[in-house]
């Protein structure tokens, strides 16, 4: 038998903390992903689900605990069998900032490791100026980060941008200080010194819902995002597909806005993040009916090709709208469960903020 000093690499890794972009091992990502999906599972269950030995799981969990990414709960004593010690992601273990670009506003959100929104603010935008002055955006990102206690700020894993596909075209048409997406990304990385990840806005919103919301346990579902337009994504075996034809329907809030305008009523409220809208009368019911029909048509068309049992409807608009639409879908398709999304404070920004987490901590 031969002896060599043990390899000190892992300890050295740990001491460098979150800021070092070390390559996280596949097994560590596997354990973190499992804990995201199954809050409070034990080390034994981790072993069963991953095939890792108890001692290997022990080493990984110990290392993640020391980094503050995972925390151990109180022992659970059942009536039969040995007690189990539940493990969970530590909400304060990591944070991320997400920026969601929409036609009328830009949302900036800071979320914790389990997706809770800790900070949220908005900047105005319009179609001619999809990007704010980069100084405003950098200021908002800094504000999000300084909302954390000083000692937690080094735990921000990165910044995500959720951007509509046509945003570069929109930017090209704007006057004067136009910024391209790439330039904006580079500027944020340069100024904030954190990695910046970019994704399509609706795909990001679906990703956020898969990671933190009602879609967590779902392999397959159909995702709708109700914003200015009504847009959809199909999720099959955790992969998010973006169809060409169904890229966007003109039955979103822009349609409601024009219904209101036709009747000479103000429409500012529908672009705010107000949790309640006042009675909007006939314009609202007309629009809601059309929107519901559009959803049903899409679902009906898709069920002929793909099997899915769940529809998730995401929107920043008041929860009762998503609930009403989901009720409608449920009545029309008894075999399909329609769920309002859990992420309601700026789904795009939360989805954007989930990007650094998936890139740095999770298996893809």
């Amino acid at each position, binding site marked *: *038998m031969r*002896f060599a*000093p*043990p*390899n*000190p690499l*892992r*300890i050295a890794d740990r001491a460098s903390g979150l800021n070092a972009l070390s390559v996280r091992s596949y097994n560590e990502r596997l354990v973190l992903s499992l804990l995201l999906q199954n809050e409070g599972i*034990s*080390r*034994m*269950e*981790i*072993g069963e689900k991953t095939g890792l*030995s*108890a*001692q*290997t*799981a*022990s*080493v990984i969990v*110990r*290392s993640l605990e020391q980094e503050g990414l995972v925390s*151990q709960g109180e*022992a659970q004593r059942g009536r*039969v*069998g*040995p*007690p*189990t*010690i539940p493990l969970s992601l530590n909400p304060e273990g990591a944070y991320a900032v997400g920026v969601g670009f929409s036609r009328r506003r830009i949302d900036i959100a800071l979320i914790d490791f389990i997706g809770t929104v800790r900070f949220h603010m908005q900047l105005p935008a319009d179609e001619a100026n999809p990007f704010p002055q980069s100084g405003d955006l950098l200021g908002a990102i800094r504000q999000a980060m300084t909302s954390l206690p000083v000692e937690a700020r080094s735990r921000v894993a990165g910044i995500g941008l959720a951007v509509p596909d046509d945003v570069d075209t929109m930017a090209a048409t704007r006057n004067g200080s136009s910024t391209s997406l790439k330039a904006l990304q580079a500027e944020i990385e340069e100024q904030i010194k954190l990695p910046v990840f970019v994704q399509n806005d609706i795909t990001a919103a679906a990703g956020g819902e898969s990671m933190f919301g009602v879609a967590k346990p779902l392999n397959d579902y159909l995702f709708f995002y109700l914003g200015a337009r009504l847009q959809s994504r199909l999720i099959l075996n955790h992969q998010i597909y973006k169809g060409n034809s169904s890229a966007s329907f003109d039955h979103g809030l822009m349609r409601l806005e024009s219904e209101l305008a036709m009747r000479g009523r103000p429409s500012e409220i529908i672009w705010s993040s107000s949790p309640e809208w006042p009675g909007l009368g006939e314009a609202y019911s007309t629009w809601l009916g059309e929107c519901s029909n559009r959803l049903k048509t899409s679902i009906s068309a898709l069920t002929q090709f793909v099997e899915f049992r769940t529809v998730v409807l995401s929107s920043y608009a008041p929860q009762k709208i998503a609930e009403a639409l989901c009720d409608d879908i449920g009545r029309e398709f008894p075999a399909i469960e329609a769920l309002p999304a859990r992420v309601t404070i700026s789904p795009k920004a939360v989805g954007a903020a989930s990007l650094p987490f998936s890139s740095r901590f999770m298996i893809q």
Partner: protein
Amino acid sequence: MRSVLCYGDSNTHGQIPGRGPLERYGPDERWPGILRSQLGPDWYVIEEGLSGRTTVHDDPIEGAHKNGRTYLRPCLQSHATLDLVIIMLGTNDLKIRFNKPPSEVAMGIGCLVYDIKELAPGPGGSTPEIMIVAPPPMQDDVKEWKSIFAGAPEKSRLLALEFEVLADSLELHFFDAGSVVSCSEADGFHIDAEAHRLLGTALARAVDAIGWSRST
């Protein structure tokens, strides 16, 4: 029923701080006893604590039988089948007569782990779960043991890190006793009854945290 072997030195034996080697805490007071009551009737707790036990050294003064390595094999075979082996050793290796740095003490623990794996006294000839417990750091004042333990208190503060590096490297369960208890002021390197209670309770939790299936 599952079996756990507690393999250690005088702090596993339950020697009372500042008293002679024959004075020992009672079976329910020392940490293996606390572990037994905490783990409950599903576990059989085996105590193997010998005062002066080292990891791998024959002690030229106290005797060759203090060598933790030569005794480990017969001990493992005597008590097989074992589901878990807890090793808490290292303090005695710091005696000046052995002249070993903390890293070398950790390598001594590594030898014991090697032997356990080779002997495979676990269920069905498997390797049992192995938990390395780093002993709590010594107090600076070790009273009349000062010359025997010259330089040892400082080294003892480095054992936990060295043991953890080893546990990571060999993929073992690890617990730092220094995270829950300190050595008694009475002699500077033994733990008192309250510390035995705290350590036994914390280790029971660490044993539970390994995760055990329902069937035995």
